[in-house]
C-alpha cells in the first residue's frame, strides 16, 4: 500500500511540476524573458503556416487521445493488478482479436496522417514549388550558411549573381522582402540555398514554421513565404521587429550560442537595405 501511495504521489507531483513550469516561463528560464516569449508555438506568419499548424493540431489531437487512453489503461492495470505477494503468475497466450485491433488502429491513424500531409509536404519540399510557370527555377535570394557556431547569410548583391564582387554577407541577421508587390498569396516566395560548412545543423524559424537540416556537402533549395497580413497583426503589439532563428540540431559545444534573427521588410525597404549593404560593402568604415 505504501508503495502505491508513494508512486501515485510522485506522479501527481511530476504532473503539477510540469504544469507549473509550462504555465510560468520564468520558472524554468530562471531569468528574464521578453514578454512575447511563450512555451507554446509563437504566432505563425508564413504563407504555409496555417497548413503546418493544421497538421500539427491533427497529429496533436490524435496522439493526445491515444496517450490518454493507453496511459489510462496502464495506470488502471498497475493499480488494479499490482502483484500481491501471495499471487501466482498467470500465463496467457494473448488474444488474436486484440492483436489485430491494436495493429489496425495505429495503421489507420498513420494512413490518415500520411494522406493529410501530402499536399503541404509537396508545397514545402518539391522542386516544382520553386519554379515559375515555365518551369524555370526562381532566382535565389540568398545563401544561408550554417557553421559552428553562427549563421551567415550571403547575398548576391545588385547583380543577382553569386561569386561576384558585389556579394555581401550579413552575420546573424537574415533580411527578407515581404513580396508585397506580388498580389498572388501563393507566389510570395523567397528562395534560399541552405548549406553547412562543417557539421549537421538545422535551420529553424518558429514564426515561419520552418525547419530543415543543413547538411555539409549538400546544397538545398528551400523557400520561405511571409504572409503580410499575419505579419502586420503580429507587429502591431510587438516592439521587437525581428524573429528568432534557432539551430535545432545539436551541433557541438557551442550549439546554444548559435542564434540568428529574421527581419522582414516591405519590398521597397528591402531594396533600400540592399543598397545600404552594398554601400557598406564598398565603404571604408
Amino acid at each position, binding site marked *: 500500500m505504501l508503495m502505491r501511495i508513494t508512486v501515485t504521489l510522485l506522479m501527481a507531483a511530476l504532473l503539477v*511540476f510540469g504544469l507549473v513550469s509550462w504555465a510560468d516561463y520564468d520558472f524554468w528560464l530562471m*531569468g*528574464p524573458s*521578453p514578454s512575447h516569449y511563450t512555451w507554446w508555438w509563437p504566432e505563425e506568419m508564413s504563407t504555409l503556416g496555417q497548413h503546418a499548424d493544421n497538421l500539427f493540431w491533427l497529429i496533436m489531437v490524435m496522439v493526445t487521445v491515444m496517450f490518454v487512453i493507453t496511459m489510462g489503461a496502464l495506470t488502471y492495470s498497475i493499480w488494479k493488478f499490482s502483484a500481491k505477494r501471495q499471487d501466482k503468475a498467470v500465463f496467457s497466450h494473448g488474444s488474436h482479436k486484440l492483436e489485430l485491433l491494436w495493429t489496425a488502429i495505429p495503421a489507420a491513424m498513420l494512413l490518415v496522417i500520411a494522406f493529410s500531409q501530402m499536399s503541404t509536404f509537396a508545397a514545402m519540399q518539391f522542386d516544382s514549388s520553386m519554379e515559375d510557370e515555365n518551369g524555370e527555377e526562381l532566382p535565389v535570394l540568398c545563401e544561408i550558411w550554417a557553421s559552428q557556431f*553562427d549563421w551567415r547569410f550571403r547575398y548576391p548583391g545588385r547583380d543577382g549573381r553569386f*561569386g561576384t*564582387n558585389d556579394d555581401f554577407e550579413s552575420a546573424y541577421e537574415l533580411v527578407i522582402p515581404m513580396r508585397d508587390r506580388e498580389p498572388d498569396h501563393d507566389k510570395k516566395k523567397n528562395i534560399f540555398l541552405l548549406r553547412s560548412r562543417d557539421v549537421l545543423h538545422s535551420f529553424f524559424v518558429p514564426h515561419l514554421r520552418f525547419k530543415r537540416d543543413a547538411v555539409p556537402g549538400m546544397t538545398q533549395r528551400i523557400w520561405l513565404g511571409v504572409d503580410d497580413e499575419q505579419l502586420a497583426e503580429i507587429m502591431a503589439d510587438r516592439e521587437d521587429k525581428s524573429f528568432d532563428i534557432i539551430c535545432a540540431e545539436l551541433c557541438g559545444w557551442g550549439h546554444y550560442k548559435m542564434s540568428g534573427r529574421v527581419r522582414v521588410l516591405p519590398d521597397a525597404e528591402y531594396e533600400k537595405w540592399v543598397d545600404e549593404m552594398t554601400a*557598406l560593402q*564598398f565603404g*571604408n568604415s
Partner: protein
Amino acid sequence: MRLRPLTSRGPFVLAGLLVGVFASCDYDPGHADLSFGLSETTMASLDDVGLASSSPQVSGALTTLFGTPQDPHYLITGDMLDEDENPNLAGEFELTEEQWEAIARDNRSRRFLRQLDLIASERFAEVPEPLYAGDLWAIWTRDFAPLHTGEASEDGGPATTVDPASAFPVDDLWVPGLPEDGATWAEAARLLFVQWYPSMRESAEMYRAQCLHCHGVDGGGNGPTGEFLEPRPRDYRLGKFKWIAVENGKRPRRQDLVNILMQGAYTTAMPNFARFSSGQLHGLVDYVRLLAMRGETETRLVLEMGDSDSGDLPLDTIQSTYSAVWANWRDADENYVAADVVVPRWDQMSVEDQVTRGEHGRELFMGTLANCFSCHGMDGRGADAPNLPISLAEVVDADDHEIDPEYEARGGYRWVELKDANGQTLTDAEGHAKRDLYRIKPDDWGNPSMPRNFTQSIFRGGSRPIDLYRRIKYGITGTIMPAAEAGISDGDIWDLVIYVKTLANSTDLARVYEHKRAALAELHEAEHGDAGHSNDHDDDDDDDDHTDTDTNDDDASGH
C-alpha cells in the same frame, strides 16, 4: 524463488533521483574562488632571473591596478585626473553620440524590452530582474523602492508609495540622461533602463558566462574549452589583436573589438554575439580591454623587475608602467587609418578594367616587392597549398628530441619531399623518398602561421575590400603577414585586393577567363587570318590551353 516486482526501497530511490535532478537545475557552480593569475611566461621569466619568489609582488601590484575578477576596476592615477578621464566609467567618456543612441535604442527594443513594457504600463512591482545587470538591479531595488514597494527606501527616500507622475527627486537620486528641467518618477524609471550602460562588474559577470570558457579567467586564451579549438582563442595579454583598423602593432580601437563581437571571426570557434545589445557588447569590450591592459602591464612589470638590481617594484615604476600601457590604448582612436580612402567600385567597373587591374595585381602578387606568393603560394592557396611555401617554415632536425609534441599536434611541422631540378623526387639508397622536416614559423601567440587560402573566399577579419586593403597595407598584427613595403602605392594595393577577391569569387574568375579567352581568340584570328575557319572547334581548345598556362591559375579556377 519468489518474484518480487519492486523492493520497498524502490520508491525512495526514485524519489531521491527526482529530487537530485530538480535540485541540480538550480546548480550554481559559483565564481567566488576565481582569481587572476600570472601567465606561464611571467613565471618562466621570473624564474630565469632568480626572482620566482617575488611573484606575489607582481600579482599584488596587478590586483591594486586592476582589481579581481569579482570586482574589476582601474586604479585611478594622478595623470588620469589631470586629463579628466575616469577609465572606470569607460563608456561614459569614450563613446560617440551615435554609439550612445544605439545603446539606448537597443535597450529599448531588445535588452530591457520586458522591463520597459511593464514600466510603460506602470506595473512597477512586476518588473523582473534583468540578466547581467546586477548594478542596475541594485539601483532599482534601492532608489526606486518607493515606486514598487510602497515602503521607505534605506536612503531616506519618500516614505510612502509615490505617484509615478510626481517629480523625481533629482537632488537625491541620479539617473543617467535625466532632462535638466526635471522628470517624473515614471520617466526616470524608464530612463534608468533605457540609458543603462553595464558596469565593469556586470560585464565581468557576462564575460564569465559567455567568454571565459574559451578565453580564460585572465584572458590568456586558456579557458577549459580553449585547448580543444583550432585555431586557438586569442590571448589578450599581449595587447595584440589581428582584425583592427589601425597600424600594425598598435592597440585596437573600441570599435574594432565591437566589430569582432558583432561579426565573429568566421570559420573559427568565435561566433558572433550580435544577440546581445550594443550596450552589453561595449561593456564586454571594456572588460576585454582591462584584461589586455592587465596582461601587458604584467609583462612590462616583470621586465622592469628583471632590470632593477634589487628585484623590487617601486611604486613609481608601477605607476609609470601602468600609465604607459594606458596611453597606448587611450590613443587607439587616433591611430585609425584609411578613413578617407576611396574604395574603387569595381562592381561598376568594366570587365576589361577589372582584368587589367587584376592582372597588375597578379604581377605584384608574384613579384618580389610585394612578395605575396612566398607565403600564399603561386595559386593563392596559402597553408593549403600542396607545396609548402618555403618562407613560411624552417628545416629542423627530425631526430631532435626538442620537437614540441603540442606544436606538432596543431600542424606545426610538415614533411617536404626533396626534388631535383626536373621536379623528380630524390630517393635514398633504399628507394625511400628523401624528405626534410619543416617547422612552420609561429606567430606571436605561438600558433603555427597559416596563410589564408584565398580560393575559399573566407576572410576572418572581414571580406569587404576595405578589410583586405587594411590587411595588405598594414599587415596583420602579431603574425608574419607584414605591412606593405613603401614602394607599393595605394593603387597597387587596390589592384592586389582586386586580384585576391577575383581568386575568391568564382563567377568573377570565370568572367575574367571568358574575357581573356575572347581576347586571345581575337589575337589568334588576327595572326592566322581566315585560315582557321574550317576548324573553329580546335581553335577554341587551343585557346583554352593558352589561357591556362598563361595564368598558372588552373588550380584556382578548378575550385
